[in-house]
Each structure stands twice: as C-alpha cells, then as structure tokens.
C-alpha cells in the first residue's frame, strides 16, 4: 500500500511539471510602439521608503513623457511603459528580477535598484545581457570600476564630496584640526567615509578615531563614548537614515558635542528632521540634488518645478532619490532621441556621449559611466530645514559653527 501511495504521489509531482513546462513554452509578445523600462525596486523590506520614492520619481517622468505623446524615436513617437518588481530589499532577488525583466518582460532599458550594493549586483546581470542600465542612486566608484560598458550612474562620484566639504571647513574660524570617522559596515557608507578619511589627511586633519558599526546596530553608545573621550573637532558618521537618527539621538544624550557633525546620507530626507525635531539642527550632510539648485532641462523643467510636482502628488519635500530616479528616465529619454533607435548598442553609444542639462543638473558620463557633470551640495539643517552651504553659487544659508 505504501508503494502505491508513493507511486501515485510521484505521478502527482510530475504531472504539474509537465503542464507547467508546456505552458512555459508559449508567449511573451512585444508591442512595437512602446519602449519598455524595467525596474526592480525595494518596495518592501528595510529600503521600502526609498523604493517607493524611486517609483514615484519614475512615474513623474513617465507621465510627463507620455503626456507629450512619448519619446521621439527617429520621428516615431513611442510611449513609455514601466514594469516594476519588488525585490524586498534583498540584492539576490534584485538580480533575479533583473533577469526576469530582461528575458521575460523584454525591457529595453533597466533602471537600477537602490544603493551602491544592489546596483553592483544588478549591473553584473545587465552587463551579461548587454542591456543598458541606468542607476539612479549609486555613487560609489567601486560600482563603476568593473569595466562594465552598460552601466551608467546619475549621482556624482563620492570623490566629488571631499573637495567641497574640506573647502568649506578649512575656511572656518577657529579652524578645525581633528576628525573622527565612524561608519556602518556597508558598501556605500564605508566607501564614502573612507574616501573622506583619506582626503582629511591631505587637508592636514589628524585622524583621532575610525570605527565601523554593524548593520542593524541598536546601540551606538560605545563608540560615541570613545569619540567623546577623543574630543574631535569634526565627527563624520556614515550610515543610513535609521542609523543616523539613532546616532544623533544618542550623541545628544551622551553629550558628544564636536564642533561639526557630518552625516552621510540620511539628513537629506524629510523623515530625519521629522524624527529628531530640533535635535536635527546643525547637523551637516550632503546631497546630490536639492530643489534650490538652479538647474533646468528640457523634459521636466527646473529643479523647483520637479519639487512642486512632487509636493502636489505626494505631500512631501522631494529629495535626491526621487529626483535622480526621474532623471534616469530623462537621460534615457534624451539618449534615445539622440540615437533615434532603441537598439541597445546605439542607446549605449548615445548615453556615453551625452552632454546635456536636466532639472537634475548637467549630465556627462565618464568612462566608468559615472555622471561627472553633476555636483554634490553640502547643507546643514537649521530650524529643521535644509540650508545649502556649498557650492556657494547655489547656497541659501550660512554654516552655523561651531555647533552650539
């Protein structure tokens, strides 16, 4: 009797395999008059907020593009279609979904996931399938040094940050001389913190402390206590918004009070100031975009214009994540029009040689595919608002120094 049950069960297993196999063989039709963009986004999991912002950004661009009849491809207007998947904030899933976007949904262009780590993972897939990929939110050089030909990133390289930062702080009086660095043990935060640390030596700062804290750290008191004892003039913390809220809170509680606290990246988000209230005041940070930048482009208009649309739609202050995502669409838009084709190799060539202005700022890609036309702005939170300090031409505030 056992035999029969087992046998039948085996048949039971195999039957659906057959059926599914046959079903699989069919379809995937592609409509000729649309351009398909695909994006695997972190819509659930720890990065859910960022994922949602990315989606909102793409949608703003897509609606604008389609409301004008689509993208002009060699004289023919083609509508934009987006395919989204949720990668649950897990890179392996992002790569899996990127493959699906390419092979099943047959997208023409891939829009990157969130952050340097996942972008690095997905870029390997885009490269293998030779599909153009635009990464809105990956700024670490290590993502772009793999020799990939199909990857383009909108954010200015991390390397653009130190000069702006140190230009600003070295002019201060009294001049700060010592720095402490603490970073989340994670791709982007580590990359940018180490870059700043390296640069600080060039600018003659003494490096009093460096430490990494783990992902999901729920207590920052130890390193804060050590930092307090070392008494640096500047404290730089690399991490994500959850880490930085906790670090800011605990720093205040423990009376850690350097003249400057610089955090990457998180204070740029509305939620940071909302969560911390006045405690967020006088924290410095940097961003790749701000609505105050006097940028202007053909598709979306000015930076302020984008911020308005965003505010109307989502009742929220726009930040660089949403803007860069919309800008990814804009870049693809302009490149396709320039190429007059949606063929991957032609689009790649067009993006590589693109040199244009957008609401997100000037766009120009270097050999690795990073946007060197863009800038990084340094700001400080004052009265819970971001005040741009650098570059001076777009600044709307003065640095409060030292922190009271």
């Amino acid at each position: 009797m056992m035999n029969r049950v087992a046998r039948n069960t085996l048949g039971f297993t195999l039957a659906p395999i057959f059926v599914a196999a046959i079903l699989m063989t069919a379809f995937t039709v592609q409509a000729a008059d649309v351009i398909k963009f695909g994006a695997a986004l972190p819509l659930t999991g720890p990065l859910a907020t960022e994922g949602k912002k990315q989606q909102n950004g793409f949608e703003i661009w897509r609606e604008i593009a389609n409301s004008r009849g689509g993208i002009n491809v060699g004289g023919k207007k083609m509508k934009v279609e987006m395919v989204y998947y949720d990668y649950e904030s897990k890179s392996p899933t992002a790569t899996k979904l990127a493959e699906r976007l390419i092979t099943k949904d047959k997208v023409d262009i891939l829009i990157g996931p969130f952050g340097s780590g996942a972008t690095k993972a997905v870029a390997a897939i885009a490269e293998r399938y030779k599909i153009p990929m635009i990464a809105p939110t990956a700024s670490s050089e290590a993502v772009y040094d793999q020799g990939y030909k199909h990857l383009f990133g909108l954010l200015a390289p991390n390397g653009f940050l130190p000069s702006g930062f140190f230009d600003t702080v070295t002019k201060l009086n009294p001049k700060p001389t010592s720095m402490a660095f603490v970073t989340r043990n994670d791709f982007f935060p580590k990359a940018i913190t180490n870059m700043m640390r390296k640069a600080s030596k060039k600018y003659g700062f003494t490096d009093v402390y460096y430490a990494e804290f783990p992902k999901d750290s729920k207590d920052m008191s130890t390193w804060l206590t050590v930092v307090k004892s070392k008494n640096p003039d500047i404290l730089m913390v690399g991490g994500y918004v959850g880490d930085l809220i906790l670090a800011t809170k605990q720093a205040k509680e423990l009376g850690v009070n350097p003249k400057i606290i610089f955090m990457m990246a998180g204070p740029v988000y509305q939620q940071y100031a909302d969560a911390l209230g006045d405690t967020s005041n006088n924290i410095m940070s940097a961003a790749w975009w701000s609505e105050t930048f006097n940028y202007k482009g053909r598709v979306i208009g000015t930076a302020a214009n984008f911020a308005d649309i965003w505010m109307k739609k989502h009742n929220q202050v726009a930040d660089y994540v949403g803007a860069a995502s919309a800008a990814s669409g804009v870049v693809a838009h302009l490149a396709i029009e320039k190429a007059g084709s949606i063929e991957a190799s032609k689009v790649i060539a067009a993006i590589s040689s693109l040199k244009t202005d957008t609401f997100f700022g000037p766009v120009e890609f270097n050999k690795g595919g990073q946007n060197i036309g863009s800038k990084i702005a340094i700001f400080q939170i004052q009265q819970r608002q971001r005040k741009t300090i650098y570059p001076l031409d777009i600044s709307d505030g003065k640095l409060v120094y030292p922190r009271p």
Partner: protein
Amino acid sequence: MIYLQILVNSVLLGGMYAAIAVGFSLVWGVMNILNILHGTFLMLGGYITFWLFHLYGVDPFLSLPLSAVAMFFLGYFIQLGIINQVIRASFFMTLVLTFGLELIGVKMALFFWTGDYRSVQTEYAGYSFQVGGVVIPLVRLALFGLGLLLTGGLFWFMAVTRTGRAIRAVRIDLEAAQLMGVNPAKIYATTYGISAGLAGAAGALVSAGFAISPVTDVEFLAKSFVICVVGGLGNITGALAGGLVLGLVENFGALYFGPGLQNALGYAVLLLVLFIRPSGLLGRAGYH
C-alpha cells in the same frame, strides 16, 4: 572614566534588552512557540505611542499603558483565534504560522505608515544628567527602569496571582492543569496577550529611544532571541540576566574589538552559553 561610562551604558542597555525580551521568553517558555510576531507587537506598540504623540501630543509615558493594553487584546485574540488551532502541532508549524502573520503585519504597517523611520521626540528626549562625571540619559534610564519593572512585575504576577499560577501549572503539566479545571485555551491566550502587552509597553519607550519603522521588528526579534537563550528559555529573571550580559558583552566587546563585531559577539556568547550551559545562565536544566 570611559570604562565607567561604558559600564553604565551597558547596564542601561541591558535593562532595555530585558524589557524587549521578557515577553518573548514567556511565550517560548510556556507554549513552546518561537514567536516571530514579537517584534511586530513591539513595533505596533511603538506606532501607537508615536501617533498619539504626533497627533495629540500625548507623552509616551502616558500612552505606554494604552499601548500595552491594546497589544494585550490583539495578542489575546490572535492566540485564541489562530495560534490555538495548531498549538499542539510541531514547533516548526507554529514558527511558520507566526512567520506568516509577521509578513502580513509588516506589510500592513508599511502600507499604512510607509517605511519612514519615526521617532518620538519629546522635550526631554535628549536630556541627560551627570553623576560623578558619568552621563546618564533620561530616556535610557527610563527604558532601564521599564525593563526592571516589566521583568519584576511579570515575576510577581507569575509567582503570586491565581492566573500566574495557572500559567505556570499549564507549563509544568498541561494535563494535570486541565484536571484542576484550567482551560488551557484561555490560559494560552492570556499568556500570549501578556507577552504582546509587554512588547507593546517596551515598544512605547523604544519609539522614544530609537527610530522605528515597520521593518525594524526583526532587529528586536533577533536580540530577544539571543537574550532568551543566554538567560535561559522561558525564565523571566533570565531575560534580565541575559539582557545585562548581552549589554555588557556588546559594549565592552565593541570597545576592545571594535563596534563592527558587536553583533558577532552576541552570537559568540549565544554559542558559548549553549556549549557550556545549554539551559542558559539562570535556566533550569531539562526544561523544554
């Protein structure tokens, strides 16, 4: 001085860890459920506090009982309506069940409240005072006090009250307890409710001391797990001991080996305790 400060930090952290873990320990000990939902209750308690503060300016210490009571009832009915249905199935089945519920709960929270980090920022949030050069942050002290209060209160409840006794009886010998006229379904629901309520209370203050978001629940869950094992499964005072040990290990470990290994050291202690004394620091051997 720095050592003294870190010692104080550790102890305060340990007390808070106890507050987070004590309910988890209770459910594990009494019902043999590895309750993945624990972090979710904590997070929900935090959100109740946050919204009451954000919308009506209610102080977290005032809304704390409310969070606790709300979570008690939520937990009570989840156990009564869902978990009780399969409580005698294998340990892994209840694990999968609570895991499934957690997925639903977190998605709902994401849907309603987005993934933004929230924190209750009261007037006194960053306030701290000094005792002989050692800084003692007020909110942390309150969390520590809450940890003591919750573990102490639960200990008292289990030791002295009629219901507490019934819970213990069910844990020791379900069938004998039934013969005494105990209705295990209700006792389980009560136990689970208490655990959820404790998580809700802890969550209320966690929202003041940390940043919460719907997805932070697993981080607190992982901590609860380590704390419970180190202290001893299902042992109430063990949660306090486990919390303090973990607090000390994490902080002094971070000092000597760098903060990067903070979490790794937690797991190292977990394994060490399992090798040396599987029943946990305060656990009774042989209890399953």
